[in-house]
């Protein structure tokens, strides 16, 4: 035992420096940091693409970019944001926080963890390189529907390879997270004592392993249809393009929950802290998360009502979709009840979490509208859908990620961020994000189609408003980058507990969290720790 510890300490001291340190690191905190930085870079790249779209839509007519490039931008913006910004951010948070929250010294498979991360820069180099290829980047929308996606250039092969790499990375990450959570919890950390963030990630990881391979299969079929003469989706050869939509959305709907369940977890951590109360209905939160995950497998066809399906099938998918609103509603109820009669304070993480609760709910409501079959015939493929998924993804997933960064940044860096700037960032973002996306509901109801670079002149005003909101929101995110950078450089020293009401094992280690924590597992039943953990749940 003493020998082993000594050897371990020795190994720590010979930590490589410089680039090699980051290239070869197997430390969950360093890998978490890499993921988060990668995600931030992709967020800015994807954001720049969004601004190209909003600039083109600032006025009717084709005045800035050619339509082909516009389509490349809508496609690449979505792929970069989904696979490059949102998903890696959650994986980065899991890397940093899951071991700290369950009292584990590291992830279960540190070396695989290193590979999971380092695949990502390669995948995105491949993806972004298509912008510079003669045939241009993919332009058929992120869903890559055939026959359109098969009629583009050869760059499709690069996109598909990139998607395969991202998928492999996600699956390895998910396996690692499950193995960590199921195998490395500290004594006393029973499943039903785990923080909600850990629970939501456990369930998300299972979703990832279940559906990323299905996406891999779908794009492989595209690849062989395009380059090797198969006819999975080619009607001339006996295939069916609608089949692609079924396979894609069998992946696609669970995928949207992959991007929101960890956000639910984050908000369930933050609201109790700043309400200075236990999370209301912890067990029902766990069950609600699990049932959302289960239901997400039986609603996929709500994305394809308009391809034509028998009435019975349309009704099934409509009701199944609406049923998801029930567990989602339970969650919102629990968050509100947690705040009820709490001693609330409104630091930046709490502001973002509250912004999440309100604005995500708006996205949920427009989702229920879209689930109504006859209404969806009107709304489908209009800006109404665009408004819906940006409320759930930007003011939902992205706001939760921002909340989590403010919440845990002092733990990561050892410094407090600038609270005034944080609040400005919140109010600026919240105001402009609504200017950006709310008018898109009206545009959609009035019939403006999505993914089209031009529009009828009666849509001008709302598009102008939306574009102004887009640029203002985008500029505001540079403030976020500055705040994070400033906090990493220095600032007021953070205490171990950081927030007065914070509970959980991650707050028992010093700030900044040392490279190695919980080498000896904490005992969660230890009276000193009960106040921090078991006591809250």
């Amino acid at each position, binding site marked *: 035992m003493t020998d082993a510890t000594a050897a371990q300490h020795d190994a720590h001291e010979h930590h490589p420096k410089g680039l090699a340190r980051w290239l070869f690191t197997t430390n969950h905190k360093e890998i978490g940091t890499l993921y988060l930085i990668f995600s931030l870079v992709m967020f800015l790249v994807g954001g720049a693409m969004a601004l190209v779209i909003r600039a083109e839509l600032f006025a009717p007519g084709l005045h800035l970019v050619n339509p082909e490039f516009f389509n490349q931008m809508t496609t690449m913006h979505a792929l970069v944001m989904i696979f490059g910004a949102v998903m890696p951010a959650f994986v980065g948070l899991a890397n940093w926080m899951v071991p700290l929250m369950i009292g584990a010294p590291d992830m279960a498979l540190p070396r695989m963890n290193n590979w999971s991360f380092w695949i990502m820069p390669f995948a995105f180099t491949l993806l972004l390189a298509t912008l510079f290829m003669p045939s241009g980047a993919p332009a058929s929308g992120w869903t890559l529907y055939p026959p359109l996606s098969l009629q583009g250039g050869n760059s499709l092969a690069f996109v598909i390879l990139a998607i395969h790499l991202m998928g492999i990375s996600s699956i390895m990450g998910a396996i690692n997270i*499950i193995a960590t959570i199921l195998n490395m919890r500290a004594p006393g950390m029973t499943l039903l004592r785990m923080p909600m963030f850990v629970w939501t990630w456990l369930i998300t990881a299972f979703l990832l392993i279940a559906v990323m391979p*299905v996406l891999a299969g779908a794009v492989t079929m595209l690849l062989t249809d395009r380059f090797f003469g198969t006819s999975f989706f080619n009607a001339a050869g006996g295939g069916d393009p609608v089949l692609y939509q079924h396979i894609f959305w069998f992946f696609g709907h669970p995928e949207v929950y992959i991007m929101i369940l960890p956000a639910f977890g984050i908000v369930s951590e933050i609201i109790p802290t700043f309400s200075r109360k236990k999370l209301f209905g912890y067990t029902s939160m766990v069950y609600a998360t699990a049932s959302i995950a289960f239901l997400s497998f039986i609603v996929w066809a709500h994305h394809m009502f308009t391809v034509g399906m028998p009435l019975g099938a349309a009704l099934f998918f409509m009701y199944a979709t609406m049923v998801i609103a029930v567990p989602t509603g339970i969650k919102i109820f629990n968050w509100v009840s947690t705040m009820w009669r709490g001693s609330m304070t409104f630091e930046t993480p709490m502001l973002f979490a509250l912004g999440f609760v309100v604005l995500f709910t708006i996205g949920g409501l427009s989702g229920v509208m879209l689930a109504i079959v006859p209404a969806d015939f009107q709304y489908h493929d209009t800006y109404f859908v665009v408004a819906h998924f940006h409320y759930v993804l930007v003011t939902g997933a992205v706001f939760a990620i921002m909340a989590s960064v403010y919440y845990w940044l002092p733990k990561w860096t050892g410094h407090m961020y600038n609270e005034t700037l944080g609040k400005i960032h919140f109010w600026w973002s919240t105001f402009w994000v609504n200017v950006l996306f709310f008018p898109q509901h009206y545009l959609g109801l009035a019939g403006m189609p999505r993914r089209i670079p031009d529009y009828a002149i009666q849509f001008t005003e709302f598009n102008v408003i939306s574009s102004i909101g887009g640029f203002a929101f985008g500029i505001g995110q540079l403030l976020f980058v500055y705040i994070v950078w400033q906090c990493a450089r220095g600032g007021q020293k953070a205490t171990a507990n950081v927030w007065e009401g914070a509970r959980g094992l991650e707050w028992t280690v010093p700030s900044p969290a040392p490279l190695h924590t919980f080498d000896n597992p904490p005992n969660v039943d230890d009276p000193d720790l009960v106040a921090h953990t078991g006591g809250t749940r």
Partner: protein
Amino acid sequence: MSDSRASTLNSKLRYVGQLALFAVAMFGFGYLLVPLYDKFCEVTGIGGRTAEGPVAEAEYLPTEPDMSREVTVHFDANVNSSLPWHFEPVEKTMAVHPGKMYETAYIATNYSDQPVVAQAVPSVAPGLASLHFNKTECFCFTEQLLGPGESREMPVRFFVHPDLDDGTNFVTLSYIVYKNDDATARETVAMGQ
């Protein structure tokens, strides 16, 4: 200590093995959806596909047509962009009685200076009606060869079965014709000799 280390390592590896297996199985499941979908469409009629060969008239055509009911059949024609053909129905619509046999035709013209072989792929909307839309003769059952500039009228014989859902008063029979590259190349070579 080292014992328990080894046992946690073992149980980690067991998880990894099982989860990796699950991932591989789900990749397979994606492919399994292809035959499942085909079977599902065949059984339920979803997707609007029709039988690939002629329906046996003697077996399915009822002895008594239902003269009290009238169903409007729309005929639709589409040409894939790589095929140098004109293709259109002789009649745009037809009022039919369920259980009675009808005949109509499509006209195809090859406006290129090469022989071209094409394949027509039919579909019926609404999808569920495809189970009751029966063709006893159709140009879509075989490849069609048209010489340079050649034009041909191609017949379709069909009947709508009286089992067609009561609420369905309109049925569309739609074709899309595709170029068959292999067969076209074969014909071009044959012509050259």
